[in-house]
């Protein structure tokens, strides 16, 4: 049973010269306990997909096509009050910068207790117990004492642990984690990645992990969706996509990542840059940079096709399989 399904989702923003689609025709699904990585360059639409799922697209932008279902029920057309009850209770969020996600004038405990009491019918004392328990679970030492301190008294890594506790304390089914380790140093990033994985395993919460870092995806995610210019170009299990990428963008991206190990003379590079949302070409958006482009690529958008295990949006694949 899938927990979340997104079908043919398009999010558009009105601009001076017509509407601009931030994401187009995005289809994906997430099962309980699964960590789905969303990877892509800045502007590829990965954060926008997360924001659409949690209902946080800023007007005048909005969903113009497609639907989002959580446990079978549509959540893309809910009224703001109804969506607010889902946010936090069923879908939690972790953002990039732990300092700005926390309220600086409330203690960590007040923020946790408020969140718990908003969503669960618990007395203040019970909510406090639960808050302390969550601080312990995310690895805050001496939680009984730390609960009454303010966010600025925590280090960057500890703050991100608090943000994770806040996202999970009402026991949501799904968490959207948008670049949760980007603001952290590598040694702390490793701790946060391991924590997310452990919590997903223990609580059965599904995670959509949005990041630009393939390394983080490799260490954390079960499946990965690669986005380019507002569309998913390849989706599949991490092992499949990272070791045997099918889309020319994914394989170019994998080759261009510098690695630790034998040093190449020249790094493989993809020429050019991703088109802006208002200047995407007619056919496949990657065609201008693609070493394998064909005539059809310039005219027709390739569809995302394949199996549960792995789907690719590329005319090259259709050619081969047909």
């Amino acid at each position, binding site marked *: 049973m899938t927990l979340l399904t997104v079908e043919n989702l398009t999010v558009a923003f009105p601009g001076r010269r017509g509407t601009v689609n931030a994401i187009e025709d995005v289809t994906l699904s997430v099962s309980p306990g699964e960590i789905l990585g969303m990877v892509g360059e800045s502007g590829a639409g990965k954060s926008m997909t997360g924001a659409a799922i949690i209902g946080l697209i800023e007007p005048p932008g909005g969903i113009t096509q497609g639907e989002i279902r959580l446990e079978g029920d549509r959540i893309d057309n809910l009224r703001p009050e109804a969506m607010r009850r889902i946010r936090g209770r069923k879908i939690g969020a972790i953002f990039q910068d732990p300092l700005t996600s926390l309220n600086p004038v409330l203690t960590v405990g007040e923020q946790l207790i408020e969140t718990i009491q908003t969503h669960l019918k618990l007395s203040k004392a019970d909510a406090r117990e639960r808050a302390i328990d969550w601080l312990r679970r995310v690895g805050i030492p001496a939680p009984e004492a730390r609960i009454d301190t303010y966010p600025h008294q925590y280090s960057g890594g500890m703050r991100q642990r608090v943000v994770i506790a806040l996202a999970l304390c009402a026991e949501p089914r799904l968490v959207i984690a948008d670049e949760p380790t980007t603001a952290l*140093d*590598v040694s702390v990033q490793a701790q946060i990645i391991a924590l997310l994985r452990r919590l997903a395993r223990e609580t059965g919460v599904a995670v959509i992990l949005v990041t630009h870092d393939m390394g983080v995806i490799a260490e954390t995610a079960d499946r990965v969706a690669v986005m380019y210019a507002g569309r998913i170009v390849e989706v599949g299990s991490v092992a499949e996509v990272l070791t045997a990428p099918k889309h020319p963008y994914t394989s170019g*991206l994998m080759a261009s990542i510098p690695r630790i190990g034998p040093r190449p003379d020249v790094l493989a*590079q993809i020429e050019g840059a991703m088109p802006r949302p208002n200047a995407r070409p007619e056919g496949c958006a990657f065609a201008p940079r693609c070493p394998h482009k064909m005539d059809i690529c310039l005219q027709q958008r390739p569809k995302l096709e394949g199996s549960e295990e792995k789907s690719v949006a590329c005319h090259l694949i259709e050619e081969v399989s047909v």
Partner: protein
Amino acid sequence: MSTPLLNVTGLKKSFDLSQPFLNRLFSGDERKFVHAVDGVDFSIERGTTLSLVGESGCGKSTVAKLLMGLTHPSDGNMRFDGNELAGMSAGDPPDVRRRMQMIFQDPFASLNPRWRVARIIAEPMKSFGTHPDPSERRKEVDRLLEFVGLSAADGEKFPHEFSGGQRQRISIARAISTKPEFLVCDEPTSALDVSVQAQILNLMRELQRELGLTYLFITHDLAVVNYISDYIGVMYLGRLVELAPAEQIFAAPQHPYTRLLLETVPDITMAHRDMERPAGEVPNPITPPMGCHFNPRCPLATDRCRTEKPEFLPYGSSRVRCHAVQEGRADQAVLREDL
């Protein structure tokens, strides 16, 4: 071995964070200092790349600023091709400063948004007087634009018309416009997407080969370091803890902190390692731990590490600041298990 192009010895920079005098008088607080750079020694041979790596707050960017004269050292020496830079300001002496240029991290903040690209690139040539004739200068700008992979027509555009990677190419063109020998690159690819990062790294290696440039490269990304460096210096809380040829850092890291860094880098080939064990975070630099700064996080720490500052001593072809390594306690197999 020739004499190094740059030689840095005992470099220190501390920032005074004390309350104003009167406040201190009433509250009884002591003066507070952050030792951002706390006695750093290194040298760079002509035509090679030294990378400084470390986590935020380790002082690597402060070293860059000290070299460029953007801030002044509290103590120590920096000799560039025989010329002492300590005590000199950003533009002085001009004949030496012309030979040293810098590339900054954020290509959105480091280019003046109101100037056309041609004027941005021509500015250093103008201020150092390398091309006094305006038409000569313009010709040189066009050549530089093409050299870094843009076109001469791009000189008439404004920075906002370019993507991040293209802007970084403009920064590079500006940096090499005065024909420098030495470039300080402070996280030049951190703000870029990976597919663009590869373009810029390749361009920088090509420039080094063609122009014989010497780089000081500052980054937190060990994989980038592996691609670009000849030597690597690992910094922790203002001190160099290990300085070694690049291959050696990756093949046989000595200092426990270097090993921790290498263990924790997310790697696309090492899926789903169990990684919750490297404990702790970088401590507050205002009150660094006594003795070796790394001792609270170090699996090999002893009483000596907690009280006595380790010296930066040669170890094989590298230099390491660690009691455990110097006492021969840092056996690799044991440490990996502990981490």
